[in-house]
């Protein structure tokens, strides 16, 4: 009986058009942050338990929606603990219509991984890294964004 319930749940999940998570090793993320594509990457660090993070997610989805043909890519990196992906992260994404790409990083990482992402990062979330290595754009924002501040910063960085 249990396996039948599991089968039905799996069927429902795969048909819910929910945003799925891409699970990455830290090495893959580190490598991605060094890429030299001429694209403005907007990497937001968030977690399901972080209220200010949840509140600003729709702003990043608007950026995704409004820039489908522009060289701009939003990536939402969840810092939910790996042991809580199944119980917290996946259900959250199933219940919220997130448009942007979502990553989660495997727990095995170097102890100085926060500094490797960005030495300016003090470890709080939400935190957003905006970069385009081809144009030497590298901006770190360690606090929430309002719609106004996000749009203002994007306007500034897009014209660099």
């Amino acid at each position: 009986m249990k396996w039948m319930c599991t089968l039905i749940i799996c069927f429902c999940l795969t048909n819910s058009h929910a945003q799925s998570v891409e699970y990455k090793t830290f090495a893959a993320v580190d490598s991605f942050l060094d890429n030299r594509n001429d694209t403005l990457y907007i990497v937001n660090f968030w977690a399901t338990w972080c209220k200010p993070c949840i509140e600003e997610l729709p702003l990043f989805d608007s950026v995704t929606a409004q820039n489908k043909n522009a060289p701009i890519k939003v990536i939402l990196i969840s810092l939910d603990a790996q042991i809580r992906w199944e119980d917290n992260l996946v259900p959250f994404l199933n219940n919220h219509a997130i448009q942007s790409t979502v990553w989660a990083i495997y727990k095995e990482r170097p102890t100085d991984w926060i500094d490797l992402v960005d030495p300016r990062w003090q470890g709080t979330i939400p935190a957003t890294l905006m970069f385009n290595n081809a144009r030497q754009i590298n901006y770190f924002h360690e606090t929430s964004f309002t719609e106004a501040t996000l749009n203002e910063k994007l306007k500034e960085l897009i014209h660099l």
Partner: protein
Amino acid sequence: MLSILAPALAALLSLTTPAPTGYAVGDEVKNFTLNNIDGKSVSLSDYASKEGVIVVFTCNHCPYAKAYESRVMDLDKNFAAKGYPVLAINPNDPVSVPDDSPENMKKRSTEMGYTFPYLFDATQQVAKDFGASRTPHVFLLKNTNGKFTVEYIGAIDDNTDEPAAVKTKYVEDAIGALKKGEKPAVNFTKAIGCTIKWKS
């Protein structure tokens, strides 16, 4: 002319080089006095007879602070008798986080049986002086004749989510080194934590 230029230059530099302010390892910590959950005030100078103090900026609401709560309690249980008691400070604005109000701090401390002071940083000046940026955030202080210096800043250990999988206990190791008359091998780490809720 210089009196106009210098502050303007300083302001410009602070915009382009956002280095964290506060104490660095090796800095002397100036005395502070804050209210404890029992209404009595506690000062750093009260610890003049101790070998040092484990200052922990922490709070009630933050899931990361909660994940470390029992480990903070264990630090006091294990090290207060060895000369390094815990001193917990809540730096958050209770207007934005009612869970972190002094009344709720008292509730939590009583409920959990904290064996250490849980101070309320009402003006948030102590958090600013230290350069605390998140909860939890540890500053391990060593006492030399009433002068307190910072010897370690950062995380309690290397695994917030799985205490059983901890490989390195930074604060314990630092205390071990200090007790041998040595400097901690690792004196600065970072971990994910909640932002401090600054007054607006």
